[in-house]
């Protein structure tokens, strides 16, 4: 096996551990942000596994999982967890309804595209992210699901990276909880690394995609573990007012 065939399996293992960790936190604390993070991370893991599988063999239903969960939905769901973390207002519930309906529509459109996949275009050994455009129908020929992907990804990028950067900035400005500052920087860096690798792939250089995914999985997991680590007197520190400006 080559390194590019092994890396997605390693990413899948990291994401599986990460998902279990987050869903355990949800089981204990019942906070909705853990649920959405956990579901989004599970989608990310499913996408990584599908990608690893498709590097070894073709299966159209694995392709379905790769595109729907790995390419389209996961970023939006992870990012929505961050929205719940930062705000519990009523409009967030409305956004949840939009996200669920949007995801169901994307799934329906993906089912619609399944009958029009061109299996003969699959090239064994080539990353699926580099060849999926040849396999999937064009938007005008039944591949409407491709139009939905940028919406989920932009929403995920803005909420996940934006939320992490904003949280890091708030703690940094208050001069408290250095572990949370570093944790949020790691989470943002992880999310950006996958964005960077995906962009390079779509611009024609797919060499760094699998490495980018593994780096993303490790950085985000490290950030989450660091943020979850209890600090002595954390509650008081988080409530401390920002230092007065001189």
């Amino acid at each position, binding site marked *: 096996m080559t390194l590019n065939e092994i890396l997605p399996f390693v990413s899948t293992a990291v994401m599986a551990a990460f998902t279990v960790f987050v869903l355990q936190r949800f089981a204990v604390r019942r906070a909705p942000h853990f649920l959405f993070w956990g579901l989004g991370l599970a989608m990310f893991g499913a996408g990584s596994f599908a990608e690893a599988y498709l590097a070894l063999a073709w299966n159209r239903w694995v392709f379905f999982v790769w595109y729907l969960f790995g390419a389209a939905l996961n970023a939006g769901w992870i990012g929505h967890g961050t929205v719940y973390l930062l705000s519990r207002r009523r409009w967030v519930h409305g956004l949840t309804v939009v996200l669920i309906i949007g995801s169901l529509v994307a799934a329906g459109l993906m089912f619609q595209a399944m009958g029009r996949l061109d299996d003969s275009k699959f090239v064994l050994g080539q990353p699926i992210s*580099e060849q999926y455009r040849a396999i999937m129908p064009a938007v005008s020929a039944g591949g409407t699901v491709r139009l939905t992907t940028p919406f989920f990804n932009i929403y995920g990028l*803005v909420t996940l990276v*934006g939320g992490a*950067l904003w949280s890091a*900035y708030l703690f940094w400005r208050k001069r408290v*909880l*250095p572990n949370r500052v570093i944790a949020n*920087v790691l989470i943002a860096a992880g999310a950006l690394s996958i964005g960077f690798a995906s962009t390079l792939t*779509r611009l024609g250089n797919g060499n760094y995609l699998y490495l980018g995914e593994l780096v993303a999985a490790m950085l985000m997991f490290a950030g989450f573990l660091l943020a979850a680590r209890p600090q002595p007197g954390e509650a008081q520190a988080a409530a401390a007012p920002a230092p007065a400006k001189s």
Partner: protein
Amino acid sequence: MARKLPPDKTRIPAGSVLFERVIPLLLIGMAILTVVFIVIAAGVLLGFVPFR
């Protein structure tokens, strides 16, 4: 004799190069990168960024 207090882990240490220089630069750099990615994604959506 005054007893030496352990460092307070809940507050950002004063004069730290990591928190005074590196973290602010990272935050600014990543914020710029985020905007670049959003523009690229929007460009793909609107069709003015040619993707393979």
